[in-house]
């Protein structure tokens, strides 16, 4: 079995360290928010998870396009890995959103554009995995996965738009500085730093996980190949 490449080992340690740092920052460095209290700290990881969820989708769709054009199985692995990771992070986004919403708006769920779009994105992710699961031929699995990732990715912004025109109560953090908007808040510099740092850390963690997963896929295929050689000999 090939050993883990050095760069990946370093990256893994670095992401673990960065994650710990981000955790400390959100808990201790960022100030306590005036109106919402400590529960607001969820916000940093909540948005960062949502960001990774969206990024993962973009990568999956892009990998899909490249796979359809080139046919290299490596890109299929990237797409699959990205969907799996995106699924997990979007789930984290949804759950952290719930945790934040309960004390603030006294409800576990709010039907606002961002949250609903995230849920729809999650459903598309799941559908992608179910589609692959229902197919026997690996080439077909890769091709159909790529097609669906592209279609799904293109539909999400339109879903967001349609719900946005529909209704909104989600706090507008960046841009709209109206303090009377329910749940909105202005970010002081330490908050902004924590926020941007969290985004950065989560991106690094995403890349590390992606790399690990793609590598696992390649190893699994190598095992398959050896198995087939043994069986046919």
């Amino acid at each position, binding site marked *: 079995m090939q050993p883990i490449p050095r760069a990946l080992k370093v990256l893994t340690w670095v992401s673990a360290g960065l994650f710990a740092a981000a955790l400390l920052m959100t808990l201790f460095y960022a100030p306590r928010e005036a109106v919402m209290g400590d529960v607001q700290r969820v916000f940093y990881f909540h948005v960062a998870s949502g960001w990774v969820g969206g990024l993962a989708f973009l990568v999956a769709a892009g990998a899909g396009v490249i796979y359809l054009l080139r046919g290299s199985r490596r890109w299929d692995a990237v797409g699959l890995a990205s969907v799996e990771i995106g699924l997990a992070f979007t789930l984290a986004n949804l759950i952290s959103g719930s945790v934040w919403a309960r004390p603030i708006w006294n409800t576990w769920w709010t039907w606002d554009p961002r949250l609903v779009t995230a849920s729809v994105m999650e459903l598309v992710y799941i559908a992608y995995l179910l589609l692959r699961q229902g197919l026997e*031929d*690996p*080439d077909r699995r890769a091709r159909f996965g790529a097609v669906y990732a592209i279609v799904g990715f293109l539909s999400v912004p339109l879903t967001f738009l349609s719900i946005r025109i529909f209704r909104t109560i989600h706090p507008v953090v960046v841009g709209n500085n109206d303090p009377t908007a329910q749940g909105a808040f202005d970010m002081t510099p330490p908050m902004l730093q924590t926020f941007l740092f969290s985004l950065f850390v989560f991106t690094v963690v995403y890349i590390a996980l992606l790399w690990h997963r793609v590598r696992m896929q390649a190893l699994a*295929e190598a095992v*398959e*190949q050896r198995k*087939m050689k043994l069986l046919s000999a």
Partner: protein
Amino acid sequence: MIEVRRLVKNFGLKPVLRGLDFRAEPGEFVALLGPNGAGKTTMLRILATLSRPTMGEVRVAGYVLPGQASAVRRLLGVVSHQPLLYGDLTAEENLRFYARMYGLSDGARRAVEALQSVGLGPRRRDLVRQFSRGMQQRLAIGRALLHDPQVMLLDEPYTGLDQDASSMLDDVLRRVAVAGRTVVMTSHDLPRAADLATRIDVLSRGVIAASVPQTEITPAGLIDLYRQVTRD
């Protein structure tokens, strides 16, 4: 007419065709024999432009596949072991549909002619759903001949046919062969293949393991050769 060099086809990681070489000159009738799973259907599908080679060169009538696949389709008539017919349409409607798909302007006339040539003239207004397997196969051949193709590919056309239907199919194929077309037919039926073909190839484990002109072998000899080549 057909040239195949070092053809490789993998399904995922599983190799089915492993560097296969094959040739068919214009006017030849090649019977392609081989055990189940050897790759006969896969090879025929690649020649029919329904599947893409993983590696290797495939040329039909000078066109390179898969790049020039659309040009080749016009020249191919394909009969698979599935009838490729719509049960809710009549025999005539099925043929007229395919005539339109092939861009034939005189589709109605050709449909009637094709039906006559496969002996289904009187049944042309009947729904294909009501046809027996033998009749469906004959209709399928009629469909394959509509656009007067230069190359015919048949994948085990005798599967599920009774004696009468098989004899009819023999007649049709003999006439087809006489008309100067190139024919590649896969089959499990050794004696029949030996009778109809000008050359017999045996596909075993992803390559052509034996190739012999029909005049140089007897039916008994063919059975021996087949056993020998597919055994190890």
